[in-house]
């Protein structure tokens, strides 16, 4: 790792639900332009960690920083709201179940937030929607409603919606897990394209081959701790921990962990 200051910095992250400790002192530093995959069995805390980054699931201990801003600052309600709405504009998030707005057309799904938050004109919004949808190959569906799209198309629109805010980091929580197998590739291609453009990304995934091909670094989590981390060729080909080996063995055998 270089001596460069981390872009996303998670320090001593802890999270409990009652007596259940879901995250136990996790540290994660991501440099600008880096792509990090988080893998691990179900319930290991991957989503919780990812969702702590934009404070969707606030941590019970530890700090999250984006560049020189602390994201999970303790502030009075009003100030916190203003602060978090500001930092969230810089963090794009893509969900397993897309969460497109069903009452809005593809175009408005992409432009709603920029229009509300960045005060752009209708003409600028149209241009923005066209640009972003073109990037994910969904331009010809711009006037459709989400219900008229396939899962893969929905997810591509969801990515365009996140990109329209021009985020500094993109978070993906199992973006392809809800898709039929034949639709996974079109979403992976869009993510690869973002990788080529050096978007900083943190990707929770069950797809080992995809993680291996696009990521700079892989974290293996189990029971709320990072068991092992390193470059993909090491984690996937030469893991040191028995837990990692066990997980990969089950996973590569096609079993769900």
């Amino acid at each position, binding site marked *: 790792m270089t001596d460069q200051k981390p872009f996303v910095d998670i320090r001593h992250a802890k999270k409990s639900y009652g007596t259940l400790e879901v995250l136990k002192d996790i540290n994660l530093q991501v440099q600008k332009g880096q792509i990090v995959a988080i893998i691990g069995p179900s319930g290991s805390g991957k989503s919780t960690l990812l969702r702590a980054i934009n404070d969707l699931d606030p941590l019970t201990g530890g700090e999250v920083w984006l560049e020189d801003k602390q994201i999970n600052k303790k502030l009075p309600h009003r100030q916190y709201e203003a602060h978090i*709405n500001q930092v969230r504009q810089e963090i794009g998030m893509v969900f397993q179940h897309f*969460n497109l*707005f069903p009452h809005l057309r593809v175009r408005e799904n992409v432009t709603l937030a920029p229009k509300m*938050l960045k005060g752009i004109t209708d003409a600028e919004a149209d241009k923005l929607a066209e640009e972003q949808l073109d990037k994910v190959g969904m331009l010809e569906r711009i006037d459709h409603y989400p219900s008229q799209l396939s899962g893969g198309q929905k997810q591509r629109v969801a990515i365009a919606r996140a990109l329209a805010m021009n985020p500094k980091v993109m978070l993906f929580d199992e973006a392809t897990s809800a898709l039929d197998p034949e639709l996974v590739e079109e979403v992976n291609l869009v993510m690869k394209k973002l990788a080529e453009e050096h978007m900083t990304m943190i990707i929770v995934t069950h797809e080992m081959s995809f993680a291996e091909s696009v990521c700079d670094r892989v974290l293996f989590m189990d029971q709320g701790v990072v068991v092992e981390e390193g470059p993909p060729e090491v984690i996937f080909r030469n893991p040191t921990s028995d837990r990692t080996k066990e997980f990969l063995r089950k996973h590569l055998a096609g079993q769900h962990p």
Partner: protein
Amino acid sequence: MQKVFPFFLEAAWITVLLSVLTTILGLILGIIGASARLSRFALLRFLGAAYVSVFRGTPALIQLFILYFGGPQIGIQLDAFEAGVIGLGINAGAYMTETMRGAIIAIDKGQIEAARTVGMSRGLTMRYVVLPQAMRLMIRPLGVNINAMIKATALVAAISVVELTYTAQRFIGSTYKPFEMFLIAGLLYMIIIYITGQAVAWLDRKARIT
């Protein structure tokens, strides 16, 4: 027989007027009530919940009697029609509060998360993401509330508002035909309710997302 018809038509008009005004009042109180029930502030949530349990937990007839007969004792002077609209409106508002709240909380949490993660505030999320979807969901159940409320307007006969039920009772004395009188009133109610039902169904179709 013939000469009672104009009175029935007049009475039907009063029933329609009562229904419309009560619906408007009920919707306004429903919006206020649902906002209170979903508020960030515990006191407002408590007040909203209290409103709902009091007015759904007691007979509408008792509420009308307290307002109309008991009101003057505490300085509230209302004529029968006013008491009818206000009493039924407050009652309908309690049901509509729960209907609206139900539709709002039925919206998938993922919708709210998606809006919040791009930086939209609670207010913007409510206005542009949750409410447009919840409003579509609440049309039919609000239609059910309105249907129940139209039928409940018959109760105001008991505080002598000259609407359909009161008029039917009033002509029994002179015609000795209770069967026919109540049948006419029933038919007129049915027409009013049918038209309302059609209007609700039309709105629901129009609001559907393609």
